């Protein structure tokens, strides 16, 4: 089987490389947009405005409480019907991935900010530090250290979740597997190649995040 796998790679590596490019592109887009959207939602949830809290809680509740595949179907079916211009399958799926990931990112950020000891805020405000300076100089620097590790995990999940786009034949790694598999009927070797590529990507990402975390903590020792 090892031999078959190598043979398959030699013959079809361009299909996998194309798929990898698609996966990285999907993941990067989702990570970028979900971080921005998630931050906004976290801010809305933390604001003391009741309406925003209700809306964001519902948003997060629905997105975290239903299967992501179901959400992909939903956006894939719904979006083309409600927008007046043509939407590709890929666009629908990217939007769905972003919306889904934003709910997780929002919760990570909210939890990270709320985990900062209340006493820190009280101390800062009692000194006469303004609320904006308290946020900038006291809360956020401490929250970042809670947020980044969890956010790193979330980013790795996003990379893996992009594989669901294969259900809609969006160009990415799992779709590459499906193409090679149906062309060769070598199901397991073609799957192993895709798996190894995913593993390489997530391992590199994990290492990168670890280095980043260590640099962040070094100044408090």
């Amino acid at each position, binding site marked *: 089987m090892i031999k078959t796998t190598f043979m398959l790679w030699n013959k079809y590596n361009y299909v996998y490389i194309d798929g990898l490019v698609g996966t990285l592109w999907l993941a990067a887009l989702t990570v970028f947009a979900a971080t921005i959207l998630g931050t906004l939602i976290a801010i809305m949830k933390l604001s003391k405005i009741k309406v925003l809290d209700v809306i964001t809680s519902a948003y997060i509740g629905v997105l975290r409480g239903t299967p992501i595949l179901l959400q992909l179907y939903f956006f894939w079916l719904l979006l083309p019907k409600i927008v007046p211009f043509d939407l590709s399958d890929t666009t629908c799926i990217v939007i769905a991935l972003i919306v889904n990931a934003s709910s997780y990112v929002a919760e990570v950020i909210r939890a990270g900010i709320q985990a900062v*000891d209340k*006493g*820190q805020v*009280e*101390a*800062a*405000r*009692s*000194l*006469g*530090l*303004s609320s904006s*300076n308290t946020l900038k*100089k*006291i809360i956020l*620097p*401490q929250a970042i*250290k809670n947020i980044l590790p969890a956010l790193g995990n979330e980013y790795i999940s996003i990379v893996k979740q992009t594989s669901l786009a294969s259900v809609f034949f969006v160009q990415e790694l799992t779709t590459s597997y499906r193409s090679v598999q149906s062309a060769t009927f070598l199901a397991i070797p073609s799957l192993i190649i895709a798996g190894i590529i995913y593993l390489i990507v997530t391992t590199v990402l994990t290492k990168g995040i670890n280095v980043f975390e260590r640099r962040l903590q070094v*100044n*408090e*020792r």
Partner: protein
Amino acid sequence: MKDKELIRVEGLNKSFGNLKVLNDITESIYDREVISIIGPSGSGKSTFLRCLNLLERPTSGKVYFEGIDLSDKRVNLDKHRQKIGMVFQLFNVFPHLKVIDNITLTPMLEKKMTKEEAEKKADELLARVGLTDKRDVYPTKLSGGQKQRLAIVRALAMDPKVMLFDEPTSALDPEMVKEVLQVIRDLALSGMTIVIVTHEMRFAREVSDRVMFMSDGVIQEQGTPDEIFNNPENIRTIDFLSKVL
């Protein structure tokens, strides 16, 4: 002793939901006075203290500082809080900032001091409390007593008119209580106005001009340390003191 009125509270009430914590307190605190607030836990001592700088917003009533009503929402609270230092039971030093930056942060941001000015002042304060050699370390390296001394000078760096202490030694190991009390004692001798919520009865007796006994959200009895500790009149004061002395 009784110079000018620094803080005045009028008809102060504070409730948390259905729980009434402070019940219609009217009281004045004068410049250069050292006041200890004693009483059983849950009596409202800390809440009373936290109302003085509006860390706790009163349910009703007014809090005047230098004649200005702090509970008025139009007042720039930050500006007045700069003159009311506060020290907490759990220190609340900023763990992500070095000792020196803990002290200089607020003077530089809110009083627009230059880095040099702020650090010069901070170094003087650190020397005063024996923390000069800790200047450039992070607070994780400090003992409880050292953290609390840092918290005190961090507040002093703003040149407050009054210092509020909320059980400053309750979270300390016994051997560190003394070093913190000594700093507060020196501060009292230097003429700082101090309001301290404490369970250190001996300390309250020694340094206070006035002792307030609180119970059930009311100042039940107050007077000189001699009056409160040697000749208490209120039955609750007598009962409380018999348990702690």
